[in-house]
């Protein structure tokens, strides 16, 4: 059972994600996480501002339960199923990141430089997190889905729009990491 406390390999995680998608399909739902962001907007009263938010959010309660579960799973994974938080990324990646100033690379789960409590007091890292979130939320809704909705659900159903969206995900991600990161960090 010791393996459970180690990081799980891709050939365990990938099939488990497929099982999660099929569980939802057999319940009669669709696997998609970003649509919850729209639900939050409606719950906060955004339906009075824009038609896009005018829908019966209560029909999405099931997905909110999934979200609460996802947080609970993170708590269990971090506190009861892990011995340490180190993510063993490629040594080459670690040295590239150290050159950019990410000294926590190779010894943390998330970079301290962006996510530690001290970083929250820095205007730069705070703005980067906020901008990252803005792009995620805006882009996911514009594209009609995120990693779960397009890369997993959509591509599993051989949807061409999902393939175009995933190509977009990579254009944006590669541009950020290779062109913008050296300018930002």
């Amino acid at each position, binding site marked *: 059972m010791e393996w459970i406390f180690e990081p*799980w*390999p*891709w050939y*365990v*995680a*990938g099939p488990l*994600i497929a099982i*999660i*998608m099929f569980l939802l399909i057999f*319940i*009669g739902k669709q696997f998609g*996480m970003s649509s919850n*962001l*729209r639900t939050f907007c409606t719950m906060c009263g955004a339906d009075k*501002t824009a038609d896009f*938010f005018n829908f019966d959010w209560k029909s999405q*309660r099931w997905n909110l*339960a*999934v979200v609460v*579960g*996802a*947080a*609970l*799973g*993170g708590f269990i*994974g*971090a506190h009861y*199923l892990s011995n340490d938080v180190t993510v063993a*990324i490629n040594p080459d990646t670690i040295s590239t990141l150290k050159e950019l100033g990410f000294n926590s690379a190779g010894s*943390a*789960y*998330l970079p301290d430089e962006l996510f*530690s409590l001290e970083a929250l007091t820095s205007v730069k890292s705070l703005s980067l*997190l*906020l901008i*990252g*979130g*803005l792009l995620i*939320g*805006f*882009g996911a*809704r*514009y*594209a009609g889905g*995120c*990693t*779960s909705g397009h890369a997993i659900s959509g591509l*599993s159903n*051989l*949807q061409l729009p999902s393939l*175009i*969206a995933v*190509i*977009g*995900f990579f254009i*944006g*991600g590669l541009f*950020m990491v290779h062109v*913008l*990161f050296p300018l930002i960090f």
Partner: protein
Amino acid sequence: MKKILSYLFIGMFFGIVMYKSEAASWFRIYEMFQFQSFHMYGIIGSALVLGVIGVQLIKRNNLKSFYGEPIKFVPKDKGITRYLVGGTIFGLGWALAGSCPGPIYTLIGAGYVSIIVVLLGAILGTFIYGLIKDKLPH
């Protein structure tokens, strides 16, 4: 109530997989965009291979849901612009924040308070999309 509990359980299962596979780690996303590890491609790729096979099996055999209802797959609307442009914007955020919409909740649960800023940004981004949706090319 029983139904809500099953969704909670599925979400919990998802959260544990996201955390334990390190798909919720900023570092893994960066490494993926550097093409320096097979890990993330293996996760998405193996999920997809099984996903494609399973969806085909459901369609060809007209499998029913747990409640005996036909399973419907809603095709995505046709188009290019919204998927390419929206996808690219999403990709920029995915790489910067190192987290997609699912793992955001997982990381909050794991105790990373700063991720709440990403979540607030994502909600705000969704709200802005809703405001200007009709002015955007789709």
